[in-house]
Every structure is written in C-alpha cells, then in structure tokens.
C-alpha cells in the first residue's frame, strides 16, 4: 500500500513539475483572442454550419470567455471580390450561451472562408487590440441560398498586425506538411520576431522569423490524433505580438490540422508483405496444379 502511494506521489510530482514546466514555462506573457473550431453540422437543406467559438485567454486550457473585452466583432469573407478586386466582408452575429461566445458560419455551396474576430481592451493606460483569424473550406450542397448580413468595408477590420499563412487554403491541412507563417505589421514584414505556437496536444513552441519576416512550421506527428479517425482534427493557435508604445497589437491565427495522410505509410514493409504473400500463393497454386501433397 505504501509503495503504491509512493508511486502515485512520484507520478503526481512528475506531472505537476516536469510536464507542467514543459508546457507552461515558455507561455506567452499576454493573453489573446482566438477562434476555435466546433463540430461541423449538416443542415436538413444540405447546407453546412460550422460553429466557431470565440475565446480569450490561453489555448487550449485557460479560457476566460470574452471577459473584459470591448467592441468584439466578427467578420468573414468568401471567395468573392468586389468591383475593385477586394474581398467582400460580411458581419457574423455573436451568440452567447452562458460564458461561451460563438458564431455560426453557414455555407449553402462550396466556399472558402476567411474569418476575423477583433476586440479591444484598456489596461493600465495601454490599449490592447486583439485580432483572431482563421481560414477554411466548407462544402455545402443546398438548393436554397440564404440571405447574408450586410456587407462592410474592409477598413472596419483592424488588420494592423495580421498573421498570414501560406498556403492559406488547403483541402486537407495535416501534420507533417509545412506551412509558412508571415506576421504582417502595417503592411510591412517583421524580421526576427518571436512567434508563439500553442498546439492542442503538444507543448508550446516559440519560433523566430528570418530576415525576410517569415518562418516555416512543420506540425509534428501526433500519436493522439493518429488514434482518432481520418476526419478527426486538432487545432494549433499561432500568436504574434507587437508593442507600439500606447497601443499593443496581439494577433492569432487558428490552424486546423488533420492527421498526416501519407507520413505513416511504410512502403517497404507493404511491398515485403505483398511480395511474400504473392510468392506463397504462387507456390500454393503451382503445388496444387502438380498435385503435390503436403
């Protein structure tokens, strides 16, 4: 009994201290606003609804709802552009359920979406501007076309500090595939800038942009994600900060990741099984044709 308690105690200390340090030691100092994907729902009319949760705090565990944030708004753009070739933005209505805030993005046809959420906070005479962004595909198949809310001008979105991802749209974003991260501040690139990466199942990492203001991130293989089905996904939030004296900008980008499709493919193992079985079946057939008795 004493040994069991001792083992539990050692494990407890290990998880609290060792694992805990690994995860939180390098955590970003500031809290941020991020968009979190919910489970996509199929509507009866054939359209798809994707609930997106708005959160403030630190991904994945420390959520605070939208407590203390002002002027929270959400906009999304489709793959369409206006007469000047600029993307058209729509407003999304924020729904509140107790401490949870979310928006529902509905698509009646195949569409590419970019979603922005923004908010403001005043803290010790410093204004903090938050921007959260994500992008995704929705493959709706509805005959009816729902009316969308008013079109707004893109200048209403405070995109002074924005995280861009290349490629922005992937049919099947997955672990093992590299993505280029470019933090853009006032249309200029940020060289040697530290970017925090909060993965749902992994410890937080910090990466630096190069002199061109970009960095490459390759999401690591995730055994927990691999155990789930092919359509299962996890999320990673990329966070960048920029202090401009009286105004501070904190932006995030939510990356959706499926398990790697081909990184776990063992070709030589497969070929060995195939050729081995083929040889065995071949010999069996030849033996059968020559009426050899085993």
């Amino acid at each position, binding site marked *: 009994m004493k040994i069991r308690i001792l083992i539990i105690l050692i494990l407890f200390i290990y998880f609290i201290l060792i694992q805990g340090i690994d995860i939180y030691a390098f955590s970003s100092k500031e809290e941020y606003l991020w968009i979190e994907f919910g489970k996509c729902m199929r509507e009866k009319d054939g359209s798809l609804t994707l609930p997106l949760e708005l959160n403030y705090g630190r991904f994945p565990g420390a959520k605070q709802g939208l407590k203390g944030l002002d002027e929270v708004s959400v906009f999304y753009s489709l793959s369409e552009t206006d007469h000047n070739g600029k993307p058209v933005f729509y407003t999304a209505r924020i729904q509140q359920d107790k401490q949870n805030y979310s928006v529902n993005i509905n698509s009646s046809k195949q569409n590419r979406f970019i979603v922005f959420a923004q908010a403001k906070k005043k803290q010790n005479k410093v204004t903090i501007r938050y921007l959260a962004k994500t992008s995704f595909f929705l493959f709706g198949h509805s005959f009816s076309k729902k009316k969308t809310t008013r079109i707004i001008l893109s200048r209403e979105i405070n995109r002074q500090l924005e995280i861009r991802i290349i490629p922005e749209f992937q049919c099947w974003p997955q672990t093992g595939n590299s993505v280029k991260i470019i933090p853009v501040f006032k249309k200029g690139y940020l060289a040697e800038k530290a970017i925090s990466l909060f993965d749902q199942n992994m410890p937080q990492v910090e990466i630096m942009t190069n002199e061109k203001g970009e960095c490459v991130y390759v999401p690591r293989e995730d055994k927990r994600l691999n*155990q789930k089905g092919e359509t299962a996904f996890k999320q990673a939030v990329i966070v960048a900060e920029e202090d401009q004296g009286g105004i501070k900008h904190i932006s995030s980008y939510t990356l959706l990741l499926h398990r790697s499709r081909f990184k776990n*493919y063992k070709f030589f193992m497969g070929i060995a099984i195939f050729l081995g079985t083929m040889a065995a079946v071949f010999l069996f057939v030849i033996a*059968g044709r020559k009426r050899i008795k085993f």
Partner: protein
Amino acid sequence: MTKVYKLRFLVQSMSFAVLTYGGRLGLRLGHCLPCFTCPYVGSCSGHCYLMALQRSQWGFQISFAEAISVWGLRALGMFAGFFLLTIIFSKAWCGWICPFGTLQDWITFLRKKLGIRESQFSWTLRDRLKPIKYILLIFLIVIPILIGNAGLHSDFGLPFCQICPAKKLMPIFAGNFRYFAVDISNPITAFMSIVSLILTAFFFVGMFFKDRFFCLFCPLLALISLFEKFGFLGLEKKVDACTGCGNCQRVCPLNIREVHLEKKKKNVLTQDCILCLRCVESCPQAKVLSLKFFKNTIFSSSKDYISKRFIKKKRENLCN
C-alpha cells in the same frame, strides 16, 4: 462482318485510356460509374459507384436523421445516375468498359503467351464462391451505416475500397505505388492495410491463373446483377435450335454453364455474365445465341462467322 473480339479489344483499350487518364484532359464523368474506375488513380476521369455508396456525401455513411434530408436526396440522386447507366449498358460495363476487367484480360493474355494453362475450379467450388460477392456488398453497406449511426471508428470507412485490389494495382498506371504501403497511423489502419495487401497479392496471382478471377468476387457485378432485369441489353438463346455442343461454356472466361445447360428460358444473361460475347462468337449454330438491345438483335451467332474465324486461326497456325 465485324470481328467482335477485335471491337471489344478496341473498346476496352479506349475505355481504359479514357477512364484512367481522361482526368488529365479535364474529363469528369462523375461518381456513379458502374465499373472499377478507381478514384485513387489521380488522373482518372470518373469514379466507381462503390466508393460513392460507402461515402458520407452520396452513400450510406450518414445518420438516419440526415437520410431524410437533402443529404439523403443526394444519395438517391447518385443512385439514380448509377441505375440509369446500369440499365443502358447492363453487364457490358464489366466485359467492355471496366478498366480493372481489362487489366485482368491483359494478364490472361500474358499467361496464354507464356503457354501456361488456366486453372479450373470444380462446380462445387464455383457454387460456393458465388455468394461471396453479395456478402461483400452487404459488408460495404452495413459498415458505413454503423459508422454513421453506431459510433464505429471512422478508420473503417470506405471498407471495400480499403481492401479492394484495384486501389493498389490501378494507381500503378498513373505512376503511383504509394498504396502498397502499410499505414501505421493506428492499429486499425495497420490491420486494414495488411489485409488489403494480402488480398491484393492473392487476387493478383489468382488473376494470372484464372480468367477474370476477381469478377467471381466483385460486389459491383453483384449490384449490377440486381438490376439486370431492367437492362436494355439481353442475351437470348433459341433453346430448340441448340445442339448442346458446349462451346459457349468452354470459351466463357467465367465458366458459366447456364447458357449451355438452359433448356427452357430464352434469357440466358446470368448473374456472373460479363457480356463479353465470346459464347455468341463461338456458337456454331445460326442465330441460336444473340445479343439484343430491347428487341433488336445487335449480334448473333452464325456458321459463317465461326468458320471465317476458325479458318483464319488455322492459317495463322500453319504460317507459324
């Protein structure tokens, strides 16, 4: 007179090229083709209906609630497309169009060139094999339903595609050997990919020693058979004029004996028949066997046809 075997070879080769590489030219023939035009071939121009049948967009992998919505209607629409194509060409899809069937015929051709005789199955074994394709058909419908409604792990999704030998063999023609790998993402994917490799090896050897070996197990052939009553194409026999020579059974790649043994019924299109018309070509009696499109005869057996073919073959053999 058109040589049917030459015409068939031409149609098969063209179908193979169009269905396997047509995608590179922007050709899109949809997701409901009643033949093994494998979606895992990157350059294919159309998809095998079996995949649609197992998927969540157009098939059975939907919840019961979704089944009574537009999603259910989409699945029905896809089935309607399949049904229409099936009744127009019936089993000719298997014997004349299916790229995987063509691959089997090429392997048979190679075996004949090597002078290796075909393996023969006993009638008891053949009768025992017959239900397997229907069992596979049930399996590929039930598993997606269980995923959609009973929480079965989604890595069992597309169950037939996962074990189908075409998934491994057909992408080779587009230069893709990737599916010969074992997917070790988790125990389910590893198990499914190993089973799939073993089955592919088994079928590959089987196809070498036996004509159209995979067709004996093909669930798509079973599905087409379910609707052959509505088909526009038919194989008819003049029962009274048949001398019972047995040529039709001997040349049949699937060793169907019903055409030879049938003494009452006019319609001799059986569930395993792939409408390759080799029985019609080899029948020595005039108009005993005929291929009909509605009531119109397209091709029928004749003494003249068989004698010309026989003389030509004999001449070729003498020259050699």
